[in-house]
């Protein structure tokens, strides 16, 4: 059981906004990884989603999620094979300065086995649309050690300024 967290790196989007945040050169010396995100997209309306990929790979992702929204709808669906669409985040027409949040746990990232993944996150749009919360579990069917993680937007062209991402290494001893 993991019992120690180390902050590998964190980043905050500055005035030069970006559609992609990437953690590279992840050392293989930990047991698991944990990604923590506070993000907002420049997409115009309702909601955006954050796609997560590993090692710049666009294949081998699988899993299921349940998504609850404040208009009383509950949706269950599978994730696409090209990325883990993990988090729903706030967009331009949401309440000002509110960011969506999300956490992802990646087990055995440096092992030569498939990588188990769980994630949850949520956003609100009290101004114009429902709030969404998504809970997901899945895996990446690749035996390579994860050395980089890419975060990109499904719809928007930029993470806005003050979006933050933290990557932790987790050790089991």
């Amino acid at each position: 059981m993991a019992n120690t967290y180390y902050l590998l790196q964190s980043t905050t989007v500055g005035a030069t906004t970006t559609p992609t945040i990437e953690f590279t050169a992840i050392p293989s010396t930990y047991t698991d990884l944990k990604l923590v995100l506070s993000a907002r997209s420049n997409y115009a309306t309702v909601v955006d989603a954050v796609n997560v990929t590993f090692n710049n790979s666009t294949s081998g992702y699988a899993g299921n999620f349940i998504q609850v929204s404040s208009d009383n709808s509950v949706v269950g669906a599978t994730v696409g094979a090209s990325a883990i669409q993990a988090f729903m985040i706030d967009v331009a027409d949401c309440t000002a300065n509110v960011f969506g949040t999300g956490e992802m746990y990646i087990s055995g990232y440096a092992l030569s086995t498939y990588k188990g993944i769980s994630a949850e996150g949520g956003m609100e749009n009290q101004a114009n649309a429902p709030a969404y919360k998504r809970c997901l579990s899945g895996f990446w069917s690749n035996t390579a050690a994860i050395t980089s993680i890419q975060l990109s937007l499904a719809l928007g062209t930029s993470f806005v300024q003050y979006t933050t991402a933290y990557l932790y290494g987790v050790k089991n001893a």
Partner: protein
Amino acid sequence: MPNPTRLEVNCTTGIESIIEMTDAEVAQMESDRAAYLAHMAEEDAAKAAKDALKASARAKLVSGTPLTEEEAATLVI
């Protein structure tokens, strides 16, 4: 006009870099976005059709009109 940039954080050195995306990366991003928009439109249409079926079933139930099998299915778990 330059391509968008990506923010790269090296976990070994701690160095942050802002790197211009390649044309191929930009094309892939735009293709992914179009595919996701199409997928969302399909989901919205399916939800609207299901909602309409439910509303029709409810109205027929209240008025005592026979339901179609499809409408009845929306009321049965």
